[in-house]
C-alpha cells in the first residue's frame, strides 16, 4: 500500500525542520498513537506519556525515515515499543478508564435492529482480560484485531516473523475467548451462544 502524497510531503518538510508540517503530522496521527498506546498500557495517562515520547522521538529520527516504507508501520513500531517499555517499567495500573465512544451522529447508518453494544462495557472487559496476556501477545492482538493491520505489517512493526505474529494472535485470542465465556457471557447476545444450536 502506497503512502498518500500529502503525508509524504509533510514528512519531508518536517525532516527538514518545518515545525508546522510536524505539527500537522502530530494532529493527523495522535489519535492512532494514543489509542494504540492506551490499549496496550491500559491507562490514559500512560498512553499520553507514551504518545508524547513517540512524537518527540519521531522528531529526532524523522530524517532517517525511508520513503520506500510505510510511515504507519514505522510509527506503529515506535509506538508499540514505547508502550511495551512503559508497561514493563511501570506495570499495569489496573484502573479502568475507557476511551470515548464514537459520536452518535456517525452511528446512524441505516435501520439496524437490536440493542447497541456498550463500548464502555466492552472496553472494561478488554482491559481486564488483556492484563492476562503477554506484552507481545497484547500488542499483536491490538494491532491485528483493533487496528486492523495486516500480519506482515505487524511482523515488521514488532520485528518478528509472521509465524510468530500468528502464534501470538492465536494465544491471545484463546485467552480472551475463555475469559469472555467465563466472565463476560453478557457480551454475547443470548440465544446464539456456542452450543445453543441457533
Amino acid at each position, binding site marked *: *500500500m502506497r503512502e498518500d502524497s500529502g503525508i509524504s510531503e509533510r514528512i519531508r518538510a*518536517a*525532516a*527538514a*525542520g518545518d*515545525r508546522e508540517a*510536524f*505539527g500537522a503530522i*502530530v494532529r493527523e496521527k*495522535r*489519535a492512532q*498513537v*494514543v*489509542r494504540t498506546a*492506551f490499549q496496550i498500557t491500559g491507562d*490514559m495517562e500512560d*498512553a*499520553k506519556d507514551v504518545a*508524547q515520547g513517540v*512524537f*518527540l522521538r519521531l*522528531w*529526532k*529520527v*524523522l*530524517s*532517517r525515515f525511508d520513503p520506500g516504507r510505510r510511515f504507519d508501520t514505522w510509527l506503529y513500531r515506535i509506538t508499540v515499543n514505547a508502550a511495551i517499555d512503559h508497561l514493563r517499567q511501570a506495570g499495569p495500573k489496573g484502573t479502568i478508564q475507557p*476511551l*470515548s*465512544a*464514537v459520536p452518535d451522529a*456517525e*452511528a446512524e*447508518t*441505516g435501520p*439496524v*435492529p*437490536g*440493542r*447497541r*453494544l456498550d*463500548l464502555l462495557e*466492552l472496553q472494561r472487559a*478488554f482491559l481486564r482480560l488483556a492484563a492476562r496476556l503477554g506484552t507481545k501477545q497484547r500488542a499483536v492482538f491490538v494491532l491485528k*484485531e*483493533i*487496528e*486492523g493491520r*495486516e500480519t506482515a505489517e505487524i511482523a515488521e512493526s514488532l520485528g518478528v516473523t509472521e509465524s510468530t505474529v500468528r502464534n501470538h494472535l492465536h494465544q491471545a*485470542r484463546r485467552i*480472551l475467548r475463555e475469559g*469472555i*465465556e467465563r466472565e463476560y457471557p453478557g*457480551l*454475547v*447476545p443470548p440465544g*446464539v*451462544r*456456542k452450543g*445453543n444450536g441457533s
Partner: protein
Amino acid sequence: MSGHVGPEAFDLAPGPDRRAALVHLRDCAPCRARLAAEDPERLFALLALAEPAASDLEEVSRAVASRLGDARPGRIEAWRERGLPRAVPVAAAVALFALLVTLGDRGPVRDAPSVAALPSRADVRVTETAGAAHVVDLTVGETQIVMIFDPGLEL
C-alpha cells in the same frame, strides 16, 4: 450500510468500509450475536470505534510542541540515536581510570612517578575533525591510548 455483515468485517483493511462495518456490528445485535457465537473475542475489534477525548489529544499536541524547544530534527542526543548508550563514554572513563591505577601499581612504590612528575610525562590531545568525531590521544609514559568518539559510527 444497508445489509448485514459477516465475519469478513473483522478482516477489512483500515478505512471507511471497515469503520462502517464495525458501526453496523455495534448497533446490530443479530449480526453481532452471529459473529460472537464463533469468536466472541473478535468483538473487541469494535474498540476501534472508541476514540481518545479531544482534550487528551490536544494535551499531547501541546506537550510535544513545548518539549521540542529549539531542537532541530535529528540533532538531539546523537549518541543515543545512533544506538550508543550513555554508558559508553562513562565506561571509557572508568577503563582509563583503571588503567592509570594499574600503571600506578606497577613496581616498587619508590619507582612510581611522583605526582609532581606525572604531568610532564602525560600528554592528552583532543582533536575535533570536520565531522562530529572526537579523537582523544592520551599518552602516559610509554603507553598510548587513542579513543575515537564518533556518533556516526554504526556499531
